[in-house]
């Protein structure tokens, strides 16, 4: 049995805008185990990026965590485990800063703008190292060169003094990874790290992240909308739709036995090589405006299996088996029937 690293319980994140409250994340549960890769999948605007930002408490105003817990199981050097609720920490406080970068670090979608063009690559990595250790400038510089070497950058001792704008997108993302891993974190959040890169570079970066994950034994939370990437890297998958996790399970469950109509539709919408264009089934309709969230199950207007009650009842989390859950009325009866049977026997 693997060890739990981060447990999210009923997390809600709302944006208080002038036009009204946007419920970007509406009560999600998520578990991340040590050393495992969890993929958070969903369309643009479903709240997956906001969720990842909330783990580090770096959500932009007017966004706020309104309720829920994010319990981080921190291992101390003497082998005991501390529980810290990240949701309760002050975003500007010292405690969350000790976790940011040192224990949970993050790489972003846009390698072109995620590094400041005003400072050298080395300056920005050395800064990350020295924020969390007592290393001198020279020691930190040596570590930084070592990290750049590990992420596969040629001539790291020369490149460390280059400015980011002289590097290609793929190189910059490698620098970001080097920076994120420089303090040996227990968890890496990768928010669409390959979306802005071309396809061959994407594959290289994915391989690199997986390789480093094995070396360092860290957990990875991978945010993506690309199911191809999910199939390649994930241990567990959480499918998000309009601020809710509609289905959660192992990568095998999700790809071989998807339960939620949204997951099924997502899988049908991936083009395959031996497929005719007409066979592709895009999901009908559009993602609704966050201001006008549909009643009941928020997916029902686009759902091909919608029933009348779907517009009235919000589905609860239904367990298909130990680590496969779904939020859909289609399965609620099945589960309750199973429960009744279990009670009878």
């Amino acid at each position, binding site marked *: 049995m693997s060890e739990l690293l981060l447990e999210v319980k009923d997390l809600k994140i709302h944006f208080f805008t002038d036009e009204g409250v946007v419920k970007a994340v509406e009560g999600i549960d998520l578990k991340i185990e040590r050393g495992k890769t969890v993929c958070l999948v969903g369309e643009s605007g479903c709240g997956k990026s906001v969720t990842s930002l909330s783990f580090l408490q770096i959500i932009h105003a007017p966004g706020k965590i309104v309720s829920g817990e994010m319990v981080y199981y921190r291992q101390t050097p003497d082998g005991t485990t501390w529980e810290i609720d990240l949701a309760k920490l002050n975003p500007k406080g010292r405690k969350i800063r000790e976790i940011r970068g040192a224990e949970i670090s993050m790489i972003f979608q846009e390698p072109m*703008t995620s590094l400041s063009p005003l400072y050298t690559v080395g300056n920005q990595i050395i800064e990350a190292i020295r924020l969390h250790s007592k290393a001198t400038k020279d020691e930190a510089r040596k570590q930084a060169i070592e990290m750049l070497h590990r992420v596969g950058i040629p001539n790291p001792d020369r490149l460390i003094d280059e400015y980011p704008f002289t590097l290609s997108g793929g190189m910059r993302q490698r620098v970001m990874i080097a920076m994120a891993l420089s303090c040996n974190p227990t968890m890496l959040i990768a928010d669409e790290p390959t979306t802005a890169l071309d396809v061959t570079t994407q594959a290289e970066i994915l391989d690199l992240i997986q390789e480093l994950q094995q070396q360092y034994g860290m957990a990875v939370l991978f945010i993506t909308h690309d199911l191809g990437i999910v199939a390649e890297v994930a241990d567990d998958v959480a499918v998000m739709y309009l601020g809710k996790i509609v289905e959660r399970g192992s990568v095998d469950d999700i790809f071989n036995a998807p339960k939620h109509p949204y997951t099924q539709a997502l899988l049908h919408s991936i083009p395959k090589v031996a497929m005719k264009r007409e066979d592709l089934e895009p999901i009908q309709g559009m993602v609704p405006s966050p201001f006008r969230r549909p009643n009941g199950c928020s997916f029902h207007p686009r759902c091909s299996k919608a029933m009348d009650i779907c517009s009235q009842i919000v589905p609860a989390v239904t367990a298909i088996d130990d680590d496969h859950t779904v939020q859909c009325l289609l399965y609620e009866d099945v589960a309750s029937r199973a429960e009744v049977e279990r009670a009878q026997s």
Partner: protein
Amino acid sequence: MWKYIARRSFYMIFTVWVISIITFVVIQLPPGDYVSKIMNQMLQAGGSSATPHLEEALRAQYGLDQPMYVQYLKWLGNVLQGNFGHSFTYLKDAKEIIWQRLPMSFVLAFGSLILVIVLSLPLGIYSAVNKYSIGDYFITFMAFVGLAVPSFLLALICLYLSYKYGGQALIGLFSPQYVDAPWTWAKFLDLLRHLWIPVIIVGLGSSVGGVGGTAIQLRVMRANLMDELRKPYVDTARAKGMPEGRLLWKYPVRHAMVPFFSNIGWALPSLISGEVLVAIVLNLPTSGPILLQALMDQDMYVAAGFILVYSILTVVGVFISDLLLAWIDPRIRLGRM
């Protein structure tokens, strides 16, 4: 880097040269010259001796009978040797007048510039970081008031207040006993005592050129920083675990300074031209009023001298701001923009 400085220096000299031609031509554009002005005065005084012959003789004496390009070349040659020509009105060397007045203008403009930076930088940063807070609204409100009040009105109000509550109107830059005294420590202190009012007025007021005022620089800083605070590199730095204060100064503020500094380069000339009205109201011994008078009197060498020195200062100011930009932003330094 040295190549960059050398190239810029060459452009600078070229620019000043072009400006000197344009100034010289523009100054002579209004009909008549200094001699026709004297003739008018003599006629008005009832003199009948204003014969065409005298006029010709005077023109020949002042060198005004020659074609414009000859006058220009002569003047330029003299200027290069440090001789700015003769003032018709004051019957003194134009150079003497310029060097007497210009340092005062410079002290005033420089003082105002420092005030602009010292006020607009922190207030702009505060406004952007705490956007839509009460403090931000207050600063914005005051900035618009500063923008809307003409500087000469501000000068009059200050004059009135200093007279009513300070006992004496703080006119000029020196107390009467120091005006013609040689430079001493006491005279310097006296200057500082008088300087703050015009510095505040020129710095806070909406100067004629527009970009000089604190209000505008403050709004520029606020807008720039609000843009920068949303950039992904800020998230990156925050995700590293950097303390907010250090993060703010190291990343977004430095980014936001780039447009701020390029504006400051232009602020210098607008501060100098914005000073004219204030200097007239407060009777300051700066160059603005003299230049205005020289232009009205067609005292061409004084006017041309002032404008030439102004334009050199402006070009040098822009050059300094460009060097600052290159220092702040490696993309400019390495020619990637």
